[in-house]
């Protein structure tokens, strides 16, 4: 593990930077209550719209809350949404995909046609429709994005699993008397996982953007929850006069999405076991 990190730092500085940024964001998420300069939700109208300064590094918003504090707590919401969405959609998509890929035949056809139906909807539109039907909340965002995201994992996994299933070691597992479920999860899945992991990491950025978009449209996180998309929405009207209210949460979204993307690209190269030098 440490060897892999060293390699990454040497060979792929961009991916390593992405990793470092993500670790810092994770730390901020965990330590928010201790490192944030102010309480999470503490409106002080007297201090409304103070520009960035010594007291408030990133300024304050229209009700006088510290923007830096809100961003730190907002990282919790965003990462929580990203991780839950990835876990939910990957659990569904990868399971269906690996079964489809290994089983083939009509089982694969049924699973892939259902997947195609979901893929036929534009993701953001389907999320929007779902978010409107369900009550606007963080949970809604997670469900809505997962509903549109899992088919990609099903497809990526099925493609990888189909090619892995034809490998000689899968045949040899069958020749050793290994039952089908074990073959699927021990022999096919681990070897079909590389493209999925890369996809997950690349998607995390996209999910943070989509979650921000849904909150921005008022269908996701609600006040007083700190959420980056919501903060951008609330700050955009003030952009010309009080730029800091919208700029800093916007940058937070940008940097996080960027970090996930560079990490995803880096993972692509180190996760292939045959390319790992021991």
């Amino acid at each position: 593990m440490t060897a892999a990190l060293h390699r990454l730092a040497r060979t792929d500085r961009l991916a390593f930077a992405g990793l470092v940024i993500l670790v810092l964001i994770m730390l901020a998420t965990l330590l928010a209550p201790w490192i944030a300069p102010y309480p999470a939700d503490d409106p002080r109208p007297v201090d409304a719209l103070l520009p960035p300064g010594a007291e408030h590094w990133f300024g304050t918003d229209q009700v006088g809350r510290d923007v830096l504090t809100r961003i730190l707590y907002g990282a919790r919401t965003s990462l929580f949404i990203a991780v839950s969405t990835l876990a939910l959609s990957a659990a569904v998509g990868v399971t269906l995909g690996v079964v489809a890929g290994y089983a083939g035949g009509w089982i694969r056809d049924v699973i892939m046609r259902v997947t195609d139906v979901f893929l036929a909807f534009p993701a953001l539109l389907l999320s929007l429709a779902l978010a409107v039907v369900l009550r606007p909340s963080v949970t809604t965002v997670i469900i809505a994005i997962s509903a549109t995201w899992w088919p990609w994992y099903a497809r990526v996994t099925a493609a990888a699993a189909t090619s892995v299933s034809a490998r000689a070691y899968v045949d040899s597992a069958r020749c050793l008397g290994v039952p089908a479920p074990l073959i699927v999860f021990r022999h096919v899945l681990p070897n079909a996982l590389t493209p999925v992991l890369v996809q997950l990491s690349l998607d995390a950025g996209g999910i943070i953007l989509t979650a921000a978009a849904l909150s921005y449209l008022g269908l996701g996180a609600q006040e007083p929850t700190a959420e980056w998309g919501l903060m951008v929405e609330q700050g955009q009207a003030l952009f010309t006069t009080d730029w800091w209210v919208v700029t800093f949460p916007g940058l937070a979204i940008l940097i996080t999405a960027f970090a996930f993307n560079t990490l995803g690209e880096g993972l692509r190269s180190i996760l292939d076991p045959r390319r790992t030098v021991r």
Partner: protein
Amino acid sequence: MTLISVRDLRVRIGERVIADVPELDVARGECVAVVGESGSGKSTTLLSILGLVEGAQISGSIEAFGVDVRTASRSRLREIRGAKIALVMQSPQAALNPTLRLGTLLRRALKRHGVAGAEAERRTAQAVADVMLEPAILRRYPHEVSGGQAQRFALALALALGAEVILADEPTSALDVTVQAEVVAVLRRLRAERGLAVLLVSHDLALVSIVADRVLVMREGRVVESGPAAEVFARPRDPYTRELIAAVPVLPEADRVHD
């Protein structure tokens, strides 16, 4: 004692006959070779013995260790696969899951067939020694070992599981000549010491003439000639067999078979 007995096996996909084998028996300690060019139905015949041919119509009877392979339940078949009959494949490294260390793979295979703990350790050590590998190899991943080592590991796996028949599908054709000799030497020794039976599929007649007791020659799915290896090589009856034999560069070892 006959371990595997195939009668009137016919594997078809639609109208096309992939393999048509009227009779094929493998007895304890015996080495039977199926020879022929690629696409002649050799490998299909092997896989059908393990009940692993899919998407094809199969008729005839296949009996292995007293079990009718065509009608046996899945769990009954799984007991035979590996533990009684082991498959050794053409490209040894491709036959090993790249995410598992060889030791892990071996331990899991043993556990699957109900062998664990001290007994598993003992069998592992014995099998690895039998194929002349270092125990350290068990800590390696498949891509970290050579083709010859991987092929010998595949044999070790078969031995550890207690397999009595090894189905070898072109076991040496992906290896270079010196490594081929290693694998052949291990196979011969195991036959002599353990009474292991080998059903060898190969287009390498030089190899076949060295190791096989009996030979089946296949062409386009059909058996064109069969009989004791010495006889087939000395007096081939079928023109196709003659053609195959004529195409082989003669090796000194082959003399033994011809006399």
